[in-house]
């Protein structure tokens, strides 16, 4: 074998291993990419809460949704795509989550400001509490009935860890015990708080 051929063979062998590793890594990465459905807005929002919980916390505290408008969050999410390597679906899910929280917060505030809030006369019920918890997207951040996000503590069995007064105060003023809480204040009426409390009692669990 000529010297040139030997050099070529030597060079090829030195490149072979790292190239193979790179090829495998790229192939695995591309084939392993998870496609997320955007058809179900609640599922998208819950996925966004999940990403918001672990991805933001990798570097800093999670910011409250109410700090920015939906439009501002969109620009911020693009910034975090470039800075924190979020994928497109992850960024869209985070925006959906923050938008849903902002919408629920605004809706709660408007209902609170209504002169004669009809919900004030609602009899508290677990069924109504479930509707409210679903509309507010609580499961995006909390596990309820074994399903949900991890940004906040599990609400399964929460009444075994906290008393009812704590739950009431937490829903009415999420930062009363922790100034850094990113839980939105939905400004639920007292009757609605009681409904959510009844729902959490009905869920039980550990």
């Amino acid at each position, binding site marked *: 074998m000529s010297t040139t051929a030997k050099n070529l063979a030597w060079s090829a062998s*030195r*490149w072979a291993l*790292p*190239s193979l*590793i*790179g*090829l495998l*890594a*790229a*192939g*695995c*990465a*591309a084939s*392993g*990419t*998870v496609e*997320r459905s*955007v058809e179900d807005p609640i599922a998208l929002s819950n996925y966004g809460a*999940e990403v918001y*919980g*672990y991805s933001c*916390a*990798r*570097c*800093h*505290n*999670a*910011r*409250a949704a109410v700090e*920015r408008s*939906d*439009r*501002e969050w*969109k*620009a*911020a999410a*693009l*910034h975090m*795509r*470039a*800075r*924190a*390597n*979020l*994928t*497109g*679906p*992850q*960024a*869209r899910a985070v*925006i*959906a989550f923050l938008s849903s929280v902002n919408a629920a917060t605004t809706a709660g505030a408007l209902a609170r400001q209504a002169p004669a809030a009809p919900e004030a006369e609602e009899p508290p019920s677990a069924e109504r509490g479930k509707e409210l918890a679903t509309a507010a997207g609580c499961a995006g951040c909390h596990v309820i009935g074994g399903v949900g996000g*991890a940004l906040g503590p599990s609400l399964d069995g929460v009444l075994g860890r906290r008393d009812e007064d704590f739950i009431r105060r937490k829903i009415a003023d999420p930062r009363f*015990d*922790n*100034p*850094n809480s*990113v839980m939105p204040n939905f400004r639920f009426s007292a009757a609605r708080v009681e409904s959510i409390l009844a729902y959490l009692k009905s869920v039980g669990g550990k």
Partner: protein
Amino acid sequence: MAAFTDYARPYHGVLHESRVMTPRRIGRRICIVLLGSLALALAPELATAQSTVPFIDELPSHEFLVVGYGTAGWQLTANGATQNTFFGSLSPLFLFQFGDHFLYEAELEFDIEEGVTNTSLEYAQIDFFLNDQLTLVAGKFLVPFGVFGERLHPTWINKLPSRPPLYGHGGESGPQPLLPILADFGVMLRGSWDLGKGKGITGSAYVTQGPSVEGAHGEEEENHGGGLIPEFQFGEDVTDINNDKMLGGRLALVLAPSFEIDLSGFTGEFDDDGSRLNAYNVAAEYRFGSTEFRGEGFIMRYDFGEAEDHDDGATDEHAERVTAETGGFYVQASHRIGPWEPIIRWTRRSDATAATFDTDAGYSQLTFGLDYWFAPSIALMAGLELNDSRSHEEVPNRFVVHWAFGF
């Protein structure tokens, strides 16, 4: 023995001679493999780019947003006689989003030093989101070498009121950092892949202007303890001193939602005589409930070029060269208890006199901190630095309190 450049002459430590092409080749190989990997991953993505989901159509597609952070603080330095000073800074970040595929972002930094208001362009970059996985970045950007410089250095994100003494700006008090917060002019391709269940792979590959030496080319240079290692700067000038570009990349593995490992490195010439800087970094972060652990370490290898002149200007790659190594690491732990968060950080670094982290030829710092969080991005942070310098100038202990405000 090779002739040194001016900044290298004061050094009297242990050097070793070797054929220096190995790290250069390794660095280039890593970069090329990273670029190749990203290109391979890009191919199928580009093929399906038209089918990607629009970026939430109902939202307006343009937005201008100012975010950033500010700091106000006070420090007490015990250096024979105590000295206490107030300080403050402002770092606004401008974001202009254009449609779903473009973002322009630029960060300025204002502070005052010795009666002069310093203004600097921390970074200014255009982000082009090619598809759901890949982003092309151009301009002056934070170099993804390690994690601290690119993601953790804003004062409201860094949990302590001081940076690990491995990184920083030359004008800051405290020990001389080994590297500045890296920001440089160039282009970069970034990719990220979601593997489900909070796992993922991210990668970056970039070409930038590269390092230069502060005070080189005739100016008197002060080095780390009068040693061999010059003070590097990145992105300070749009003129490339040697037309040789820096190549680098990072590969990050998110093995679990709360566990990430990053490997990164770069290689680039820092003078016009073939002198080269190769740097390798490994970083890791793990969170468990309210407890967080993170650490980062890097090694820098310097290959000082020959002074031999060739008529055609070429560098003799087979010549013997002088090499040296330096590096350091930090580990940090913190635990959140309501609004309070105690932090401890330990930093070690070696000088060029020691290729290993020998206790007699390095520097260490133990930092105790306590934060009080008023809001997720507003905190009062206190830190006590206990410095142990064994091989270069005395570094005084320091107590720093600052109020960090992210907005």
